[in-house]
């Protein structure tokens, strides 16, 4: 796959390494604005083609390569630049456009501009905190294309577990795993009779309903 990665900062560093791992034979082109960074990037990522471009020249690069680029990843250290490049990629009908955010508050703006894949590197903070501090419910992950989600619930007594069992019984679109406070793992909550954390993975719609009713009961 031919991927254009724009930016040479921290986000771009992680993105470049991930792309290399996912598609080792693929063609990666990195665009950077300064000659010093281009030199460093060429040494750090010998597998990639590093190109120096003016800030205002990136759009024309996208335009002239639109028919062969498979993906554009905007990962500069400025969200306004990332938005500009995502818009240019959209206007030129690049099939896969990904933005890596610097400020999570800008997510809505990217969504409004029709950028479907938005990576929020800070999104992991509330998830990790919720797990560490043992919050009642926690949405761990939603897959980018939608419809599947992973969440966890804090089960404190047998009554809660019984109600959850009832909700999950017969539903083939949600899988469950219970981890007790002592670290014991049970793959079937029918057998489990302990307190701990219940991990659920499956249909986003169904899981949201389970989480909502669980939260209501907790109140």
């Amino acid at each position, binding site marked *: 796959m031919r991927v254009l990665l724009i930016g040479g900062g921290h986000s771009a560093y992680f993105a470049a390494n991930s792309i290399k791992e996912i598609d080792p034979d693929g063609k990666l082109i990195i665009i950077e604005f300064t000659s010093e960074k281009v030199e460093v990037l060429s040494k750090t990522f010998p597998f990639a083609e590093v190109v120096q471009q003016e800030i205002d020249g990136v759009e024309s690069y996208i335009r002239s390569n639109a028919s062969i680029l*498979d993906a554009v990843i905007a990962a500069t250290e400025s969200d306004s630049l990332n938005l500009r490049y995502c818009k240019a990629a959209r206007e030129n009908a690049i099939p896969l456009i990904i933005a890596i955010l610097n400020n999570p508050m800008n997510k809505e703006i990217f969504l409004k501009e*029709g950028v*479907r894949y938005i990576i929020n590197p800070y999104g992991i903070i509330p998830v990790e905190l919720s797990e560490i501090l043992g919050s009642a419910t926690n949405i761990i992950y939603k897959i980018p294309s939608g419809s599947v989600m992973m969440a966890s619930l804090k089960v404190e007594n047998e009554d809660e577990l019984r109600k959850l069992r009832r909700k999950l019984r017969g539903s083939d679109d949600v899988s469950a795993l219970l981890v007790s406070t002592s670290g014991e793992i049970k793959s079937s909550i029918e057998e489990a009779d302990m307190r701990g954390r219940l991990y659920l993975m499956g249909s986003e719609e169904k899981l949201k309903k389970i989480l909502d009713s669980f939260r209501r009961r907790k109140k």
Partner: protein
Amino acid sequence: MAMFPPEDIILRILVAAAVLVLSYFLGGYAKSRLERVLSKFGAGFARKVSDLVRYFILFIGIAAMVSILSLDIMAISVIIVAILILLLVSMRDIVLNLAAELYLATRKPFKENDWIKVGEIEGSVKSIGGMDTEIITYDGDLVIVPNSYFLRHPIINKSRSLARYVELKLSFPRMKLDKLEQAVVEVLDEIKPELFGDPELLSMSEKDDRVEAHVSLPIVNVRKLRWLTARMAKGFLTRGIEVEIE
């Protein structure tokens, strides 16, 4: 009606015709002026409103014409029905496009950037407008599809998978099978970095004085197909092999 004596039917017909012509031109003028004024709210919206105003003025003109001619109820009813049928037929596309717009907005069968196939057209959705949708095809051509087209043809949304599997037929004239397999594998290997996974050699067979091979390429941006086939042809040529790619 009092200003015309009943026997002066020719004069009445002439005045009625003049009123109709006047309302026709007035409608056209109002449409172009309104379209310009309302364009700040979007071209689609401006067009729809100005069309409605134009038809309204035409309707008033026809009503005035009927009044001047002093026709009886039966004749008026026949004229109204005829006009309604005429309007419905002439506005058929507008009505259909409006219905399609409603359908696309509520059902949402595809989004921008989705890869769809509708009727004979296949490509990536560039933009969805009120009256039409822009689609970029395999060859990079921009096709503007009136939204009413989506009501008449089933829509296949192929966007669940990132890659499309494109099958190509390679024909090698005056070649023998045993000398080709290695070259095909090498050329496919050369274009692999541009693909979403491994290219696949589906079949290879000798037919008369030529060899035919079928390959499957997983491609994300199908617009690069033409570029890829050119690269493949070049790859074979550098090996001294002539190829025709379909």
